[in-house]
């Protein structure tokens, strides 16, 4: 197939060609970046929380006097443990996807000079680490005497477990076991490393720190209470949670049950990622609409050109061109136009990505998005032009002989 005559024909329609090239370029730029945004959101939504989400539920009570914490814990724990099907109950400050309750900046030196980032502190009473289903990959699980009693926020000196990702951030490449870190006057020593434990609001402080958590074993005493971790068989969990709601209103009538938070961990997760799901849906909608409109533009323009060139097509057919030649002519023409659009679109895609990087903390667009985007647009162009091109190929040679 000769490209020269196609280019000569396109030169006759410079403006229309330029516009369709521009449209494809814009589509290419938006397509690549929108797909990248979707991939980022999906990646976030697939976050591994490190806990047995499907078996866990959370109960949170408010509105009681701090002085009665120990008594309240005793009443509620006894009440909850009596629910049939309940596997275990323990006191914990919060769970992943519930409200953030222990986020704080830490330093890797006692003087507070080397800032180590903001992390989530989970304070859990005995039994909670097993109940969560946390996997310890190095070091050891807390022993009975590791559960310290405390009076304000955290124990002043504690042996704790950190996540792999936090350990790698604080002490890159080094063995984290036995390392120390500080938060103001509180001192911590790493006794074990957890595979995963997501922060309560993953992504809220950036995607990198979504797993920067510290598990502090504590005795609930009178300083930790009102929030409880429930474990039951996933099949029983909804019923157990319903009964738990009823039980706490009975055994602790002077408190307020926080219904937004007192749900299964899976439900909390679903709510937390709702916004990302909405955004993904919106981006998918934009991609579909954009591809649709681009395809419509190609169909519309190609149809016009076919109609306009009926006589020329007839003449070509009359002097020996086959149907396949005509078909290939329009397909090649479309390929050239789309290629031009893609070339311009790649530059635009990178420009758009730079803009997004400065305003929306998005990483750099990986290069492999470009060939994928190009293939998608080439395929779209060929599909869109197929109809008009087949109609062109069907033009009978006799057209050439009619009314000149």
């Amino acid at each position, binding site marked *: 197939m000769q490209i020269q005559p196609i280019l000569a024909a396109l030169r006759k*329609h410079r*403006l*229309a060609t330029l*516009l*369709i090239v*521009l*449209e494809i370029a*814009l*589509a290419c730029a*938006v397509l690549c970046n*929108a797909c990248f*945004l979707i991939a980022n959101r999906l990646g976030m939504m697939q976050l591994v929380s490190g806990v047995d989400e499907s078996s866990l539920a959370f109960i949170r009570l*408010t*509105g009681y006097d701090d002085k009665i914490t120990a008594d309240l814990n005793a009443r509620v724990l006894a009440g909850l443990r009596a629910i049939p099907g309940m596997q275990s109950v323990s006191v914990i400050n919060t769970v992943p996807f519930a409200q953030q309750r222990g986020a704080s*900046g830490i330093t890797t030196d006692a003087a507070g000079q080397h*800032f180590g980032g*903001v992390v989530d502190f989970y304070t859990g009473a005995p039994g909670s680490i097993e109940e969560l289903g946390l996997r310890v990959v190095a070091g050891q699980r807390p022993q009975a005497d590791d559960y310290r009693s405390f009076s304000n926020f955290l124990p002043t000196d504690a042996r704790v477990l950190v996540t792999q990702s936090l350990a790698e951030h604080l002490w890159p490449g080094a063995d984290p076991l036995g390392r120390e870190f500080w938060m103001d006057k509180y001192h911590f020593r790493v006794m074990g490393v957890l595979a995963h434990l997501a922060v309560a609001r993953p992504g809220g*402080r950036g995607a990198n720190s979504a797993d920067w958590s510290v598990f502090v074993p504590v005795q609930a005493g009178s300083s930790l209470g009102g929030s409880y971790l429930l474990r039951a068989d996933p099949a029983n969990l909804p019923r157990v949670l319903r009964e738990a709601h009823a039980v706490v*209103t009975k055994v602790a*009538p*002077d*408190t*307020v049950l926080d219904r937004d938070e007192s749900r299964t961990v899976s439900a909390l997760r679903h*709510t937390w990622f*709702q*916004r990302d799901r*909405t*955004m993904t849906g*919106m*981006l998918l909608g*934009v991609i579909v*609409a*954009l591809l*649709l*409109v*681009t395809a*419509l*533009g190609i*169909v*519309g*323009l190609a*149809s*016009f*050109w076919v*109609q*306009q060139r*009926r*006589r020329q097509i007839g003449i070509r057919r009359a002097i020996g061109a086959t149907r396949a030649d005509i078909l290939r002519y329009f397909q090649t023409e479309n390929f050239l136009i789309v290629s031009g659009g893609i070339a311009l679109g790649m530059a635009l895609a990178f420009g758009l990505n730079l803009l*997004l990087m400065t*305003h*929306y903390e998005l990483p750099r667009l990986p290069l492999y998005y470009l060939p994928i985007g190009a293939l998608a647009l080439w395929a779209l162009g060929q599909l869109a032009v197929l109809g008009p091109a087949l109609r062109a190929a069907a033009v009978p040679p006799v057209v050439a002989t*009619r*009314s000149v």
Partner: protein
Amino acid sequence: MGRGNALDGKSHPLLPPGKQGEEKTNGVFDMFAYYLDLALRSLKRNKVLTALMVLAIGLGIGASMTMITVLHVMTDDPLPGRSARLFTPHLDPLPLNSKQEGDGPDPIDNFTWPDAMALLNAHRAKRQAAMAGGSLLVRPTQAGLRPFDVDGRYATADFFALFGVPFEHGQGWSAADDAARARVVVLSDTLDRKLFGNADGIGQTVRLGDNDYRVIGVAADWGPKPMFYADASAQHYSDADQFFLPLSVAVDQKLQINGNESSWVKVADPSVMTSDGMSWLQFWVQLDSPAQVNAYHQFLVDYSAQQKALGRFERPSANAKLYSLMGWLAHENLVPNDVRLQLWLALGFLFVCMTNIVALLLAKFLRRSGEISVRRALGARRRDIFLQLGIEAAVIGVAGGVLGLLIAQFGLWSVRRRPDDYAELAQMDMPMLLGTFALAIVASVLAGLLPAWRACRVAPALQLKTL
């Protein structure tokens, strides 16, 4: 035949019946109606293509108007008529060596207790009030009601007059009540009804947290959206104050504060609300004239200079600022990044749709070169052709606007189902409704400009020869 299907034997009126081009001065309306007729005929001739163009502009307009409406309701004036006279001062009491860690809240967005009290007692503005958000547990005495949490505001006496809070019953408290730390409360209509049914609760006692308060007023449900006077951590589009308590009582009783409490000195007890090293209050003033605004700004600078001389402030006194209400909202930047990104996506999409329509109209108009040439040869001027084609583009715009309106309503419906706090507000008002049509017509006429210009520059002689 290829180019001239306007002349191919079917009855396509090329001229208005009994009318010539030059007579249009006494028949502008006729001419317009005639062009409209031509446009409809031309659009009907290729239904599929017309539908494609209407669909493209409808999708683009629908998506754009959805996001423009969302942005419009989010950045709308929360207190029309009053907002121009409301200002919020801004001091910088931070030590020189303090620096912002990460993207946490800016400590100097809020006031410390000593600064707020100094400004309040200076009485340099017509009205001034210090305030902070709070959350308290209501313990109803009525049978059948369990304790529940409510959000409200601790404020000084001028709060109600400053913001023009309407009252259903009773009134706010006085500066004397502030000084006396009077245990009084103003309830919202919603909370009042919940606690006292239809009888108004004036004079009754409500137990909030650990104290009893006497109800002295019931405010009509009054929720400026966004809640401009709340601090950065609030849900500005969904929160509404259910109670109002004197600020002095809140400080006296160490009531719980909702909002950022940023401290830059090592205080032994973090619950010291009156510390000059912790910011947690919001402060608003009413200033009626530009002269008052300038005078107040000067007062803030002088106050900062005085505090600097006393050794309390370390930073330049020129850091003191005075924000207007809308200026403050812009500074707070309440619109989430996701919404901005979606708006840009929608506008980008509209742009792609318009490019598409330009290309299609160009092809369509140029195909009618023959028809246009005949009209030109019969005396129509370029501007007549331009007008005729422009009207055709506008007809597509009107149809696209109707479709866009439907799509925008669907888009807004889906926005309302989002879990975000602004979701409830996503409703289209009259200006937005008209704006949809305006945008649709402007977009399609703009898209039609270039093709129409190209088409009316067709050389008639050359075209007529080939007919």
